[in-house]
């Protein structure tokens, strides 16, 4: 188990190098001379030469890559549009994204898992039919459309919540009120797919022999469901949450744009719009690092939930 954790942590190194290399190669694919693109309208031969010197654009590929990484990490990489260091711009917006992500994940887990368990226990009841019908539709609804509908219902039709913007940190009332709509909108897809999967995983496990045994021993039904069935159903549920994370990270950039949320996702979209390549590189790299880290945490959860799994 310990060896597995170490192995997973070590795997992070090639992943992070690979991700930054992919993004660097994509950036290199931009047609034109990078220094002149960076300078935009203030272009002079001296400035081009200075930038070439600073970022080493005349150097061979691998040196350019290492320079880029070094400049990014030390904060010397400047954004074209914002006239500021990429790292600064991103770090100012990171909290907003993390707040949105954590709250959405929390909502998704807290809504989806109980729904799925109840739907499985009360199979074919009204609750089961209605919740699974909603979940089936929920998978097919684009997150940004959910966001638009939420804005229409909760800030236009019944104006109780703010339609967009950032209200402050999560623990302040205003911050929380601003966070409610975007985080619910972002969590819908994960709620839908996780509750469906929880239901089918629970139903699969409730057919198992050991549950019949437990029941015949006279174990209370509540205990059977929570202790015997649910613990075993957790493994496919967590796998699904891991699989849905990519969709959620992608959804975050859409939700941030719908709700004018000042996060890294919206920053990435703006950077693409302004063709601000250093900022595209930085923001997508940071979001990917976040994604890889969360994915790793989800993977490590297996070890704690199911110690029976032996890792080679």
């Amino acid at each position, binding site marked *: 188990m310990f060896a597995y954790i170490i192995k997973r942590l070590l795997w992070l190194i*090639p*992943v992070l190098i*690979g*991700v930054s290399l*992919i*993004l660097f190669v*994509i*950036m290199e*694919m*931009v047609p034109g001379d990078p220094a002149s693109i960076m300078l935009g309208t203030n272009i002079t031969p001296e400035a081009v030469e200075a930038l070439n010197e600073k970022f080493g654009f005349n150097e061979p590929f691998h040196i350019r890559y290492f320079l880029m990484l070094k400049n990014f990490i030390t904060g010397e990489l400047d954004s074209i549009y914002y006239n500021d260091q990429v790292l600064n711009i991103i770090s100012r917006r990171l909290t907003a994204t993390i707040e949105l992500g954590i709250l959405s994940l929390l909502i998704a887990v807290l809504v989806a898992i109980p729904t799925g368990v109840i739907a499985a226990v009360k199979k074919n009841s009204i609750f089961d039919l209605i919740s699974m019908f909603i979940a*089936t*539709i929920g*998978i*097919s*609804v*684009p*997150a*940004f*459309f959910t966001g*638009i*509908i939420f*804005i*229409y219902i909760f800030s*236009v039709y019944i104006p109780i919540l703010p339609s967009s913007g950032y209200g402050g940190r999560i623990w302040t009332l205003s911050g929380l009120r601003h966070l409610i709509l975007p985080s619910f909108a972002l969590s819908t897809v994960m709620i839908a797919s996780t509750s469906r999967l929880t239901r089918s995983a629970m139903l699969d496990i409730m057919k198992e022999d050991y549950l019949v045994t437990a029941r015949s021993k006279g174990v209370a039904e509540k205990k059977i469901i929570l202790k015997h069935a649910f613990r075993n159903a957790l493994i496919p549920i967590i796998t699904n949450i891991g699989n849905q*994370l*990519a*969709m959620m*990270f*992608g*959804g975050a*950039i*859409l939700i941030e*744009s*719908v709700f004018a949320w000042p996060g890294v996702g919206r920053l*990435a*979209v703006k*950077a*693409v*719009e302004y*063709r601000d*390549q250093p900022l*595209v590189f930085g923001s*997508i790299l940071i*979001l*990917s690092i976040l*994604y*890889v880290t969360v*994915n790793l945490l989800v993977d490590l959860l297996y070890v704690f939930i199911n110690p029976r799994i032996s890792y080679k």
Partner: protein
Amino acid sequence: MQLYINYKNWIIGDKIWSSLEVQVSSITSVIIILALLILIFKKDLFSSFKENDLFQKTWKEFNKSLGGKIALIVLALIFYSAFMAPFISPYSPNAIDYSNMNYTAPSSVHWFGTDDFGRDIFSRVLYGARIALGVGFAAVLVNASLGVTLGLIAGYYGGKADMIIMRLIEIWNSIPFILLALAIISALGKGMINIIIAVGVTGLINFSRLTRSIVLQIKEKEYVLAARAIGSSDFRILFKHVLPNSISSLIVLATLRIGISILVVAGLSFLGLGIQPPTSAWGTMLNRGQEYLIQAPWMSIFPGLAIIITVLSFNMLGDALRDALDPRQLD
């Protein structure tokens, strides 16, 4: 002259329901729907098929799921409206109504209302189906051909090739796919072809993992060994023996991926990075609609519903096909 009536009126945007081709197309649409209904609910008409025929077996299983049947009918209608959009849409999608250059609520004249330029939203939604289906299919085609090729190589040759390919795909997958598509668009620029490439090359892991797992199962079968023994080339074994055996699983995955691709394309278009206006794509329409959400909610609701119905149908069809074909490798 009847045929050109759509284009003749495109500036004025007159209603042309009475024209000949509209009548013809509505009659054909009724015939197609009836044919589909018979096909689906009167299955005994198909008893002329051979017993044990794979197609018939699948069809029989497929018939058991109501959701799959409904999805098939809805998809047929969506395909029909996409193909016949020039004939069934009452207005040209880009016809600006100069007499009323503002949004108007849904009415008998404009079924889904008009947008801020006075363009008919119903016509735009119909034309949007062409873009959504076209881009969705193209992206999945690119995605599947790349993913399947990599999966075939990894699974068939095994060893080092397998390890390197799968590890590289895993790293490629460490960038959430919408973000990767975003990065690719930032390099290639906006536009339809670029968005197909961007969505097509991301998320390769689904197809390659599936193909690889099937190849690993089939590789050891006797007929593959026999084919190798009589001197078939690797290429022939892969494409004659291995690929046909994985086709049913691949179809299920492709159906589900089309839904996701349509969602991603709509999302990128919504951000203004995908299909560019004035082309009437659903995501682009939603982007415009959000600005007028308070005054003209129909500008958002109808393209949004179109996306939901299309993606839902592909998902339900995929689920039903999975149950019918029973490719266990998917789970």
